[in-house]
Each structure stands twice: as structure tokens, then as C-alpha cells.
């Protein structure tokens, strides 16, 4: 087992620190046990188990720093890794931006560990696969899916007295269902810290339904449409707002958050006033560690409030340079939702398109956060409050900023890839061409 208790981790890191001869030394330690199963063409293709453990030592002499890592924790190995980090530090040029290790910090108690999720067996994984394959085969559909679960810990200690420890469990599931005539495709994604919330059969059936109902899609003209975006569709675009939160790139003038003539958009309204985005390591649906790899405490933090940029992320170096407090990057992404269900959103739509998922999303222009990508695995035309028929997939070129300015209605929140994102109805979403892909 590559999982060390708080006491065991502490002892190992104290031992490593005792070998340090540098001005300062910082140690990050982690371990995980993970298992996966992969299937395609309605049969299992690969399955595996992985055990990983790692210790990272960063030593510094003044502003010269070196890093070395090792995966064995006996005394000789610890001595060796500390020595290597020190050798590399001595060889490296000075980095004027090097900040040195933090002092002791206070962290909230995290809620990322779930006992049932730490004991997932190969048999459970096989059941997940058969929960997809059997109902798929019964409906003339072919399943291809992947389930991965992990149980891990991370810990940190430095020569300035900082110590941190956390355990977490995680599981991810995706399945693509394709009709055997090749004209329909559906997909679903689920992820949980607590495996008891996961129902593989139910999730698989959603994908099967999407596959069957998306058969023989009709082509409609690309252009600007009102869209209902499922959370799996919007999350890829929304997360890219997160990548624009760096105060430094904004100050440097090379970010969407940079302002004409200098300065940043901090305090400016950039999207619809109903948009509220924050991060919170203690949210019970999407918990994360309460500290990051640099040892900084993570707290609930508002990023966009009533459409206004509330905070930007400051590294310790940039914060010092600007005379402000450091603000760590978010560890999750939570967007406030509303009460409307997906059915409510469809019911209230005269003409529009329901999008299951957006795929192959790539940045086109960092200046405007313009992204391109395609719809996939279930795109449907809505008329007078009802789904009329499936439509062929589109390529879009759209900015999440424009999208959130064109917000019509917010629906319920759903967990997706460790984030909480609402269903959303948005007007004038830009589809630029049609795709023949199913």
C-alpha cells in the first residue's frame, strides 16, 4: 500500500529534513492506489491497477534552488534525494522570483476522504463495465467506456515549520454508446469522491437513450441559436475563464483580464449580473484539499460576483511585487444555478438546440477568450417547448464571456469533472459550420 498515515508521513519527512544542509528545504510527499477498467466493442479491453508513491525535495541556497524526487522512502534513499536536490540547487542560476518556503499555516479539515471509495474491488469495476455492456447490447448499441478509481494522500513539510496532510478518494466514469447502424451516439460522464453516489446502470442508460434518440439527425443551417447547454457542454468553456484569472498576465497586458491603457478588469462587470462564480474546498459535492502544493491554505473565494470580477489570483512573488496578499488559484469551480430542471428549460424554449457535450475545445484568440470545438453525442432541435428531432453536429466559435452575457436562464447545478455547473439557457450561441461526425 502506498498510503501513509499522518504520523508515518510526518516521520518520513522529518527524517528527510534532518539530512538537509541547505539554507531551506521543503518536502512534498504523495501516494495513491488506483484501479481502472476499459471496454470497447461491448467487451473489456484492458484493466489495471497502479500503486504510486513519491517524495519531492526542493532545496535552496539563497535564491538558487534545486528539485529532486524519489519513490523509495528508506533512510539511504532519503539521504540520496536530499543530496541530489542540493547538488542541482548549487548548479542552477539564481531565480530572482524565488520566494522561499512558507512558515506554519492553519488549514481547515478537509472532507475529501470517503471510506467506501477507498476499497473498490476489481469485481466492482467489472460490474460497472457490465452495467454498460449488457443494456447496450440489448438495444443494438455498442458501449465503449472507462472507469477509474483512486485513493491517495498528500503531505508537506518544510524547514520553516510548515506541515500539511490530506487523504482523498476519487472516481471517474465515462461511457460512449453508439448505435450499431452508426447513425446515433450518446455519452455520459460521472465523477464522485463518494462512490455510493454512483449508479453505473442509470448513467449508462442515459447514454443509451441519447444514442438511440440521436439517430438519423437532420442538418440545419449553422448560425446563431438559443442553446440549452448541459453542464458537460458548458464546463469546458467556463473553466477557461479560470485560466484567465492570473493577476500577473492581466497586469502584463496579455490576458482577457487586461484593461485598455493598463491595469486589470478587477472590479469591472464582465458578464450578466446573475453570474456568480466561486471556489470552495469544503463544498460537500465537490470537496478538494484545503491546501495546495505550495502549502497555501485554500478557502472559499469569490471570483465573479453579480457579474463583476471580484478577485484575481496572485502568486506569492507577484503579490509581494504588487503589495497585496497572495491569492491561490481555485481548486474547483462552482457556478450558482437556479431552480429550473432540464425539462423546465426545454418547456420554456420556443426554438433552440439542446447540447449534450462540447468537444475538442481549443483556444482561438486569448484576447477575447474565443474558443472553437464541436457538439457531440446528442444534439437536438427544440420547438415550442419540445424536443423535435436530433440535429447534425455543429462546430462553434464562441467566447464564454459572450456566452455569459447572453444568459437567458440558469438551471440546477450538477457535479461535472470536480466542478458544480448549472444547466444554462443562452441566446445567440455561434455555430459556424456543420459536421458529418456521429
Amino acid at each position: 500500500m502506498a498510503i501513509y498515515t499522518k504520523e508515518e508521513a510526518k516521520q518520513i519527512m522529518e527524517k528527510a529534513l534532518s539530512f538537509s544542509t541547505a539554507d531551506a528545504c521543503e518536502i512534498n510527499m504523495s501516494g495513491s492506489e488506483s484501479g481502472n477498467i476499459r471496454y470497447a466493442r461491448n467487451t473489456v479491453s484492458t484493466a489495471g491497477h497502479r500503486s504510486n508513491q513519491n517524495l519531492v525535495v526542493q532545496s535552496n541556497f539563497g535564491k538558487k534552488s534545486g528539485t529532486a524526487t524519489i519513490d523509495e522512502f528508506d533512510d539511504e534513499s532519503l539521504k540520496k534525494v536530499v543530496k541530489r536536490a542540493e547538488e542541482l540547487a548549487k548548479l542552477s542560476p539564481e531565480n530572482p522570483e524565488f520566494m522561499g518556503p512558507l512558515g506554519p499555516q492553519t488549514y481547515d479539515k478537509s472532507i475529501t476522504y470517503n471510506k467506501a471509495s477507498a476499497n473498490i474491488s476489481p469485481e466492482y469495476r467489472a460490474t460497472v463495465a457490465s452495467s454498460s455492456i449488457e443494456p447496450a447490447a440489448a438495444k443494438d448499441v455498442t458501449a465503449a467506456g472507462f472507469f477509474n478509481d483512486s485513493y491517495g494522500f498528500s503531505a508537506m513539510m518544510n524547514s520553516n515549520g510548515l506541515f500539511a496532510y490530506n487523504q482523498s478518494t476519487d472516481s471517474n466514469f465515462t461511457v460512449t454508446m453508439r448505435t450499431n447502424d452508426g447513425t446515433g451516439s450518446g455519452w455520459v460522464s460521472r465523477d464522485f469522491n463518494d462512490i455510493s453516489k454512483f449508479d453505473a446502470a442509470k448513467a449508462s442508460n442515459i447514454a443509451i437513450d441519447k444514442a438511440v434518440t440521436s439517430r438519423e439527425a437532420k442538418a440545419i443551417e449553422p448560425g446563431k441559436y438559443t442553446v440549452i447547454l448541459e453542464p458537460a457542454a458548458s464546463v469546458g468553456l467556463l473553466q477557461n475563464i479560470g485560466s484567465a484569472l492570473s493577476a500577473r498576465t492581466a497586469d502584463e497586458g496579455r490576458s482577457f483580464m487586461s484593461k485598455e491603457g493598463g491595469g486589470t478588469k478587477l472590479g469591472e462587470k464582465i458578464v450578466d449580473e446573475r453570474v456568480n462564480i466561486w471556489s470552495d474546498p469544503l463544498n460537500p459535492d465537490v470537496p478538494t484539499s484545503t491546501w495546495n502544493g505550495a502549502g497555501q491554505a485554500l478557502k472559499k473565494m469569490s471570483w465573479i460576483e453579480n457579474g463583476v470580477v471580484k478577485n484575481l489570483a496572485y502568486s506569492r512573488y507577484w503579490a509581494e511585487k504588487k503589495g497585496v496578499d497572495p491569492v491561490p488559484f481555485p481548486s474547483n469551480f462552482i457556478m450558482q444555478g437556479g431552480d429550473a430542471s432540464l425539462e423546465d428549460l426545454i418547456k420554456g424554449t420556443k426554438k433552440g438546440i439542446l447540447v449534450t457535450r462540447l468537444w475538442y475545445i481549443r483556444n482561438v484568440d486569448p484576447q477575447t477568450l474565443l474558443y472553437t470545438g464541436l457538439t457531440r453525442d446528442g444534439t437536438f432541435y427544440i420547438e415550442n417547448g419540445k424536443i423535435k428531432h436530433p440535429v447534425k453536429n455543429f462546430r462553434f466559435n464562441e467566447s464564454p464571456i459572450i456566452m455569459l452575457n447572453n444568459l437567458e436562464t440558469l438551471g440546477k447545478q450538477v457535479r461535472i469533472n470536480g466542478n458544480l455547473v448549472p444547466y444554462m439557457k443562452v441566446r445567440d450561441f455561434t455555430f459556424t459550420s456543420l459536421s458529418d461526425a456521429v
Partner: protein
Amino acid sequence: MKRRDFVKYAGLGSGALMMPSMLMGNNISAEALLNPGMDVAIKKSLADIALNTAKTLGASYADARIGRYLNQYVFTREDKVQNVVNTESFGIGIRVITNGTWGFASTNNVTEKGIKKATEQAVAIAKANSKIQKVPVKLAPVKSYGEVTWKTPIKKDFKKVPISEKVDLLLSANAAAMKNGANFVNSGLFMVNEQKYFASTDGSYIDQDVHRIWPTFTVTAIDRANNKFKSRQAMSAPMGMGYEYMDGLDSEKLDGPAGMKLYRGSYDMVEDAIMAAKQAKERLSAKSVEAGKYDLVLEPNHLGLTIHESVGHPLELDRVLGYEANYAGTSFATLDKWKTKNFKYGSDIVNLVADKTQVGSLGAVGYDDEGVKTKQWDLVRNGVLTNYQAIRDQVHMIDQNESHGCCYSQSWNDVQFQRMPNVSLEPGKEKYNVNDMIKDVEKGIYIAGRGSYSIDQQRYNFQFGGTAFYEIKNGAIVGMLDDVAYQSNTQEFWNSCAKICDKDDYRLFGSFFDGKGQPSQISAVSHGSSTTRFNNVNVINTGRTI
């Protein structure tokens, strides 16, 4: 460490450079890189432990890969070195067929005990999975090569070049860019050495020493008054070469349109950084493109990515068959289209070849990761789809009995599977240079370098940007353009291929971090081409006002 974390670690910012965790390995000291590693006789005896254990346990086939991966990365921005990283990873991966089913296990405990235990795990996994296996694995025959070796033909081993020399080169390039109008520069140098030993129950013992290098940068120019910023990527290519790629030999330079310098088998980083700064600055006030149909003249460092996405991926047999359906997707290039023997992938002048042998390419090895001697083969000949990319357990599905030799694993601890070989567009047979591509274009755009890219899950609809765009009017370049992206359909696009420069213009593009599989693995691959013209392609304007 996740890919995203590494980017932060390297201080490069999103979109600048991507560095996945798989290449990380364990950091080691500079001098440890020069340790020659394990003697080949010892590797053979260790591999034999795995093969014999597997046979004793009832495996009908087994292979063992002992890998030592030594990498070095240098990251800088403007006048600062952000990080110098040396990594080492060492271990053995064992793959077996038992009861007609694959099993795989790996360990970094490369001792008799550790190898036996891992082999037992591999056999146990194969036995467990055989209960739900419907069709037994069928391997194409392969020759027994005995004890053989292969090495990337390098002139300068990156491990013998002092760190200070590498740092000085990057900082000189950064300084040159800053002096010529850049506001920011991020640069990096990736150097990879895979020392791979392969042994199988088919009787091959193959020792290979593979080298790759990638110098790159992003130069950014800013206009604060108008709140604009524009970047230009390096015109280098990742190569299957040693540090000699950094020599910047004049003999390997080509003159491109609009005063651009382009590079073949030797890269002048400082010269390119100067050009990049000037182009990034010029782009701040370049004319925004008018959307519409244009003839596109595509430079090889740009066209390579289009080849990668619209030819390389759709012709991977596992995608065609549905094994990648849940991740990368499937393919429009289905078996029924191939079986007609007249599916027009491209126009008559389009010849696309798969290759694992080309000197200087990222994909070049002597033998693949299941011990098959590498070769070159046709994918598209005279515009017609002729073949796919397939490995030992796949070729029988397309009625062939010889593996194409394109099996690869990113590391000793990941299972090998079918990966893209180099896929390249053959140069034109007529004597044409870049000016010949441009001179008869009434309304067109010359596009150089890599930019934004996106393609659907069956590889029909794609959209590509670039890093430098020039307007062509009535046979001549008239100025720089901005906000350019083209959208097309793979078959339509390749059938619009009108004219290809000859071999004198041929050079390689490369992708260092091509991803595939679940759990995802990376692979490095090159795509060669000469400057090529495609007529009447749809161009969109990507400019927006917010």
C-alpha cells in the same frame, strides 16, 4: 504531477508549452545523466527471467521491455531561468498472452524477485480477463532477429552539452526577441533519451538508444493603449536528433515569403526569435481578414498539424474499429470505404506515406515496441486510400499478415499499443518552389507555423489557425493578415490539393505530446511535407469585440 501543474511549475502559462506528467520520471543530478546504464548482457538475463517465468506459468507469448528514460528540460522567460530539470525513470514492463488474452504488469524493482512477481501479476490479469474475452488475440508472425541494436544517428549527445550552454542559448534568443520589439518571451528546451531493451519469446533481443529534441518559444508583443496582444510561436520542429539541431547551419535554411527564414535539419533559434518579435509586433496592426473562400498556400510547419489531425488519426486502425470510441473517437475512413479500392481521400497528386525509418524524424526507430522491424508504407497513393496503421494483433482484421511496426509505449510502466507512425505528404514531382505556389493565386493566404486546431471525433470537420498569415493578391504577397482560421472537411480539403512544391522545400513538422488511450499515453511523431496549395478553402474571421 498533472500536466497543468507542470505548466505552472515551469511558469509558462496556459497554451505556451505542454508538459505531461508521464515524462517526469525522477529528478536526478546532471552527472547522473551520463551514467551509461545497465550492460546489455545483464538486461538480457533479466528479460529472460520474465520470458521464462511467463512460459512456465502457461503463457503462449511474452515480451519484456526494460526502459531507462533520461530527460532534461530547461525553461526560461525574458532574462530569467525558471527551471532546469533532469529526470530518470527505470523499470520493466511485461506483457503476456495467456488463454488468448493480454495481460500486462510493470515494476521498478528490476531484480529476479521483482520481475517474477510482475510476470505473475501479468499472467493473473490475463487469466482473469480471459473469462470475458470473446475473441482470442491473434498475432501476426514476426521474424526472430536475435541480438540486435539501433541508435538514433546523433552527432551531439545533449547529455554532454553543459547546462550553461543551453541556458545561454535560450537567454540569447529571449534577449534578441526583446531587443526587436517583444514584450515577453517564454522559451524552453526539451531533450529526451529513451534507452529501450526489448525481448520476446519470438527470439528477439533488441537494444535501442533513441534521442529527441525540441527547442521552442512563444514571443508576445503588446499594445497597452489599445489593449491588444499577439504572439508568434517558434518555427522550429521537434526532431529525432541530438543537440546538433541547435547549430543553426546556413545550409539548412530556406528563404520563405515576406522575408521569413525557414528551417530544415538545423535551427537558428536567435535568428527565429528576432523574426518572431518583428512578426508579433506587426500582427498588432495587421489587417483583419475578410471571411470567404481563399486559395491557401500552407507552409510545412503549419501543414504538418493538418496532416496529423486529418490523415494520421483517422487512419489508425484501432480508431476505425471502435477501440478509441470513448476517448479520441472513431473515424470516417471506414473499412467499407477502403475495401472499394477507389475511395478518393485526396486529389491525384496526393501521396501520403506512413514511416518509422526517416532519419531525423521523431518516429524513427529500428524496431517497434513489440519487436517488429520498422518500414515505410503507403496510406494514400494517387489520392486513393490504400492502407491503415496496424500492429501485430490488428493486421489480420484487414486481411494482412505483416505488422506495420508502429507499436509504442511511452514508458516501461505503460502497456504498448498502436501509435501513429510519421505520416508525411510526398513532395511534388514537378519542379516548384514557394513562389510557384503563390504566383498564380488571385486571392489567397500564405499560412506559416502552428496555431489553434480542432477536429471532430470522426475527423470530418476541422478548423486550423496558424502563427503568421500573409495575404496573396494577384500572384504576390501584399501584407500581413490577422484573425485567420480555415474550416473544411477532410476529404473535400485533400481533394482541393492543387500544387505541391518539390523535394527541395520538404521539411518536418513534429508533435512531441500526441495523446491517445485511457489512461492516456503520449507519443512523439513527425509529419513531412513541402509547401502545398489548396484551392478555394473556407476562411473565417476570428476577431471579436467584447
